[in-house]
C-alpha cells in the first residue's frame, strides 16, 4: 500500500482542525463550512477502505509500522481488521452529523468548538486503528481532552460536575489499564504489539489480574453496571454534538477494548469470567430499562436506555459464540446510529424549546409532523422492530446468549418489553395528546436538519433489511477471535477457519 490510508484518516482531521486557526475567529460561517468540508473529505476517505477491504482474511490490513521509541520496542503501528473497519465509517459519519447539528446551537467560542470536534475525530480514528498497545493508550487518553472541553465549555448549567465525574471515572479506569499494559509488557516478551501479545501462554492468575485491570477501563466506558452513573450526567449536560459523539462512538470504545484486548490476549480469563460478565450485562439491560421509567429528563432517559442497550452488546460479546459476537459488533454500530439519531433529534427540538423536561412537551405530532415521523422511526429502531437495524443486532445477541446460557436470554428478552414501554411512553408524552401551551408555533425542520437525519434513516433500513452488507465484514475476523478465545491457533499463524467461513 503506497498511500498510508490509516495515518491519513487519523491526521487529516487533526491538521484540518488546526488549520481552522488561520481563519479569523469572527468569521464563524467560514469556520463552520471549513469544518464541514474537512469532515466530509474524511468521510470520503473511508470509501477506499470500505471498498478495498478484504473480507476473506482476519489479518490486519492497510498495515503501517514504523519504529517509534526503540528502547521500549514501541512502534507506530496501525492496521484494521473486520472488527474495527466498520467503526471508522461510523466515526466519520457521526462527526459530519455532529458538525451539522451544531450549526446554530453553538454560538460561543465557535472556532474552538469545531477544532475540538475534529481533534476528537482524529483521536477516535487512532483508537480504532492502533495495533500497538502504547499507541492505543495515547489515543485513548487523547480522546478525553476534547470531550472534556466539549462538555465542560459548551455544556449545560451543571456541566462542571458532569465533566469532573466523567473525567474521574474514565481516568481511574484508564490508569488501572496503564498498570495492566505495563504488566503485560513485562510478561509478554517486551512488546506492545497486540498481535504478538495475543496467543502467549500467560498464567491464569496473571490473566485474571490483567482482565480486571482492563475491565476497569473498558467497563467504565461502555458503561457497564454499576459504573454507569457518569453517563446520564455527561449526556444531560453535553451539547447536542457531544451527546451524539458520546453515544455514537465514545461508549463503543469500551466494548471495542474488550474485543481487541481482553478476549484475544486473555482467553483463559475471558472464559473464566464469562459468567460474571453475563450477569453484569443482564443486570444492565433490565436495570437500565426499568430506571428509564423513572426519568423526567429527555436526555437522561435516552442515556439510561444506552446503559440497557450496551448491556445487550456486552451480553452478546461474552456469549462467546459467532452469533453473539457478530450481533454485539453490529449492535454497537446500530446503537451508534439509533441513539446518535435520537440525540440529534433531541438537539434539534431543544434548540426550539430550551427544555429537556418531558412534561413540558406534548402534541408535537401536531406542530412538527415531519419531525414526529423521524423520531418515531428512531424510536422503533430503538425498540428493535424487525425491518430496522435494531432488530438484527438484538436478535443475534439474544440467539447467541440463548445458545450459551438460556436463562440470560430469558431475562434479557424482558428488555424488549421494558424497552417498548419506556420508549413508547416517552413518544406519547412528547408527540401525542393535546398540544402543550409552550409547544405552539415551533418552526418545522429546515433542510439542513432533514439532511442531518436522513442518513440515519437510510442506515436504519439498510442494515435492517440487508444486514449482510455489514455482517460480511465480520464473519472471518469474529471466527478468528473465537479461535483465539477458545485457544485454537496463535495470532499470525494460519488458524483453522472452519468456524468462521460461512457458505
Amino acid at each position, binding site marked *: 500500500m503506497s498511500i498510508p490510508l490509516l495515518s491519513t484518516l487519523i491526521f487529516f482531521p487533526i491538521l484540518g482542525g488546526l488549520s481552522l486557526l488561520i481563519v479569523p475567529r469572527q468569521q464563524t460561517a467560514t469556520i463552520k463550512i471549513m469544518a464541514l468540508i474537512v469532515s466530509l473529505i474524511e468521510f470520503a476517505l473511508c470509501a477506499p477502505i470500505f471498498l478495498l477491504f478484504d473480507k476473506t482474511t482476519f489479518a490486519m490490513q492497510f498495515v503501517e509500522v514504523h519504529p517509534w521509541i526503540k528502547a521500549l520496542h514501541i512502534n507506530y503501528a496501525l492496521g484494521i481488521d473486520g472488527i474495527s473497519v466498520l467503526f471508522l465509517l461510523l466515526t466519520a459519519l457521526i462527526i459530519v452529523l455532529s458538525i451539522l447539528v451544531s450549526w446554530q446551537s453553538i454560538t460561543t467560542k465557535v472556532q474552538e468548538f469545531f477544532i475540538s470536534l475534529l481533534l476528537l475525530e482524529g483521536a477516535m480514528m487512532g483508537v480504532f486503528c492502533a495495533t500497538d498497545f502504547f499507541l492505543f493508550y495515547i489515543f485513548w487518553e487523547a480522546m478525553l481532552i476534547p470531550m472534556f472541553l466539549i462538555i465542560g465549555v459548551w455544556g449545560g448549567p451543571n456541566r462542571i460536575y458532569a465533566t469532573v465525574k466523567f473525567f474521574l471515572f474514565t481516568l481511574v479506569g484508564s490508569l488501572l489499564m496503564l498498570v495492566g499494559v505495563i504488566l503485560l509488557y513485562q510478561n509478554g516478551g517486551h512488546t506492545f504489539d497486540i498481535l504478538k501479545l495475543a496467543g502467549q501462554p500467560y498464567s491464569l492468575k496473571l490473566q485474571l489480574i490483567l482482565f480486571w485491570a482492563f475491565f476497569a477501563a473498558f467497563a467504565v466506558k461502555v458503561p457497564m453496571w454499576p459504573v454507569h452513573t457518569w453517563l446520564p450526567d455527561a449526556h444531560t449536560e453535553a451539547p447536542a454534538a457531544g451527546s451524539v459523539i458520546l453515544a455514537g462512538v465514545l461508549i463503543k470504545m469500551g466494548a471495542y477494548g474488550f474485543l481487541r484486548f481482553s478476549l484475544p490476549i486473555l482467553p483463559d480469563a475471558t472464559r473464566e469470567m464469562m459468567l460474571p460478565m453475563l450477569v453484569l450485562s443482564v443486570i444492565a439491560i433490565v436495570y437500565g430499562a426499568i430506571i428509564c421509567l*423513572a426519568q423526567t429528563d429527555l436526555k437522561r432517559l435516552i442515556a439510561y436506555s444506552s446503559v440497557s442497550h450496551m448491556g445487550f452488546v456486552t451480553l452478546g460479546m461474552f456469549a462467546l459464540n459467532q452469533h453473539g459476537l457478530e450481533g454485539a459488533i453490529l449492535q454497537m454500530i446500530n446503537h451508534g446510529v439509533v441513539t446518535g439519531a435520537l440525540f440529534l433529534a433531541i438537539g434539534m427540538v431543544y434548540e426550539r424549546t430550551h427544555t429537556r423536561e418531558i412534561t413540558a412537551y406534548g402534541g408535537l405530532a*401536531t406542530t412538527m409532523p415531519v419531525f414526529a415521523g423521524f423520531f418515531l422511526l428512531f424510536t422503533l429502531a430503538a425498540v428493535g422492530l424487525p425491518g430496522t437495524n435494531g432488530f438484527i443486532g438484538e436478535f443475534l445477541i439474544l440467539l447467541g446468549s*440463548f445458545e450459551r446460557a438460556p436463562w440470560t436470554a430469558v431475562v434479557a428478552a424482558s428488555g*424488549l418489553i421494558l424497552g417498548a414501554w419506556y420508549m*413508547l411512553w416517552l413518544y406519547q408524552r412528547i408527540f401525542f*395528546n393535546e398540544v402543550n401551551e409552550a409547544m405552539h408555533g415551533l418552526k418545522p425542520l429546515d433542510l439542513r436538519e432533514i439532511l442531518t437525519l436522513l442518513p440515519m434513516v437510510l442506515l436504519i433500513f439498510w442494515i435492517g433489511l440487508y444486514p449482510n452488507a455489514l455482517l460480511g465484514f465480520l464473519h472471518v475476523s469474529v471466527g478468528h477471535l473465537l479461535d483465539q478465545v477458545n485457544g485454537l491457533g496463535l495470532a499470525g499463524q494460519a488458524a483453522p477457519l472452519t468456524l468462521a467461513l*460461512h457458505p
Partner: protein
Amino acid sequence: MPASLLAIPLLPLASFVLTLLLGKRWGTRAHWLPIITVLLSFCCALAAFFRVRSGEIVNQDLYTWIASGNLTVSVGFLVDQLTSVMLIVVTSVSSLVHIYSVGYMKGEDGYYRFFAYLSLFTFSMLMLVLGNNFLQLFFGWEAVGLSSYLLIGFYYQKQSASDAGKKAFIVNRFGDFGFILGLFLIFTQFGSLHYHEVFSRVDGIAGQTVSLFGGQASLATVIALLLFCGAIGKSAQIPLHVWLPDAMEGPTPVSALIHAATMVTAGVFLVARCNPIFELSHFALNLITVLGAITALFAATIALVQTDIKRVVAYSTVSQLAYMFIGCGVGAYSAGIFHLFTHAFFKALLFLGCGSVILGMHHEQDVRSMGGLKDKMPITYWTFLLASLSISGVPGLAGFFSKDEILLMAFNTELGAGKFAWAIGVLVAFMTAFYSFRLFFLIFHGEFRGTDHQRDHLHESPAVVTLPLILLAVGAVGAGWFGVPKIIGGDNHWAHFLEPVLGHPHVHVSGLTEGLLMLGSILAGVCGIGLAFYMYRLKPHLPAIVAERLAFCHRLLLNKYYIDEIYIGGIVKPTLAFSRGVLLRVVDLACIDGVVNGVPRAIGVFSEKLRLIQDGQVSHYLAWMGGGAVALVVVLLVSI
C-alpha cells in the same frame, strides 16, 4: 417466482411509501392509489389461489436476509393452501375496508395518513402470511403490530387513543417475549428457521425433553407453548386480551380490518401453520383448548352487558377467536381456519355496520342513545341482521357451518379437554346469539333514545359505505358453503383443500351423533335469539330488573372483571414505584453516586485537616519535627 406473486405485498408497500410522502398534496384524492393497489393485490391473490388449486405450491427464497455462523434466514415466500386462503381473506376484506373508508373518513384530518397506514398494514399482514420462515413471520407479526399501534392512535390528540395504541403494543410484547424464545429454541434444535426444514424434521424432537426450572419438560411442549404465547398476545386471549377492547379507540374501519378480520387472527394462523409441532404435544393442545374455552366464555359474558356498540363487538371478537383456538386445540386446524374465514366476513360486516350506525348517529357509540334505526338505515339494518344471524349460527349462513364443525370436532376428539370445550362452546353459542341480538334490537328496534338533533340528521350512509356492507353480507351468508358437511349433503370441500397442510383428524362419528350435535348448537343459537327478543322487544323493562337483581355480577361484568385494574395495581404501579423508589433513589443516587461523590469528599475532608498542620508557626513545625524524629527512633528500635 411469478411477478404477480411478488406484487401481492409490494403493491401495498409502494402505496404506503408514496401516499405517506405525497398524499398530503393529493388531498381528498389520497385514497385512489391505496385502493387501486389493494384491488390489484386482491386480483393477484386470486390468481395465486387458483394456481395453488391446480397444484402449484411455491416455496422460494428472494434473498438472504441474515447470515451469521450457522444461521441463514431468507426473505422468501411460501404459497400453499393455507397461505392462499389467508391471502384471499386479507386482500378481500382489506379492499372493502379501503373503499368503505372513503366514506367513513371523509373530511377527517390526516386523511392521507389513514390510507397510508392501511396500506402499511396490508403489506405487513401479507408478509406475515406469505413468509416461508419463522423470522419473516415475526417481521410481519411486529409490523402489523406497528400498523395497529399507528391506527389505534390515529386520533393521537386524544389521550385515550394514544394510551390504547401504546397499551396494544406493550401487551403484545409480552406475547412476543415467549414467541422469540420459542424461535431460539427451534433454531437450536433444528438449526434452521425455515418452515420446510423444521417441519420435515419435526418428528426428531418427539419424546425429547429439556430441563426447565430443575425439572424435565417435553421439548415439543415447551416450543409449542412458547409459540402459543405469541398467539395469546396477538389474538387477544386470556390473560393478554386487555388491549383489544381498548383498541376500539381507532377508527371503525380499522377495527373491522385489523381487530376483527385479519391481524387478530394471526395467532390462529400461527398455530395452524405450526401444527406439526403442536401435534407432538397433547399437553399444549389441551391447554389451548381449555384456554380457548375459558376465553370464549369470559369474553362472551362481558359482551352481555357492554353499552358501547364497538366494545360489544370487540368482546365478541375475543370470544370468536377463542372458538378458533378450540378448533386448533382439538386438532381440527382446518375447522379453526374455516371459522377464521367465515368470521372475517361476518365480523367485519358487524364492525362496518356499527361504523355506518356511528356515522348516521353523528359519532354516537352508546347503544342507550339509539333505537329504531331500522327505517332510517335500511341497508345497514338488513346487512347487520344477516351478520347477526350468521354469528348466531343460524343454519345455512356462514357462521353456522364453521362453528358447527368446531363443536363437532371438540366433542369427538380423544383429547381430555374436548368435551369440556364442547360444553362451554354450546353455552357460548347461546350467549353469542343473545348479545348479538340484544345489540341488534337495541340499535334498530324500539323507540329512538338519542337527542333531537341526532334524530333530525339520522340518515343512511352513502353508497361507498353501503356497497362494502352488501358485499360482505354476501360473504357472511355464503362463505360457509365451501365447507358443507357430508351429513347435509356437502362434501366438506374446505377440509379437503387444506388437508395437505393442516391434516385431517379422523373422527368416527355416527350420523345420529352428528345430527344431534348439530341440533344442539342450532337450538343454542335460536334460544339465544329468542331470549334477546323476549327481553329487549317483548319486555323492555326486564333487563334493568335483572341487572338490579344481579347487581354484583352486573358490576363485575361491566367492569370487565377488573382485569385492567388488577394489572395496573399489580404490575404497572409497582414497577414504576420500584423504578423511582429503589433503583433511582437508593441504588443509583444513594449507593453508587454516594460512593462516587463520597470518596472525593472524604479525601477533601482529610486534606482539609491535613492542611491545618501547615499553619506557618515555626514552633509547631519544630514540635512535629521532634515528634517525627522520636517516632522514627522508636520504630527503628522496635524493628531491631
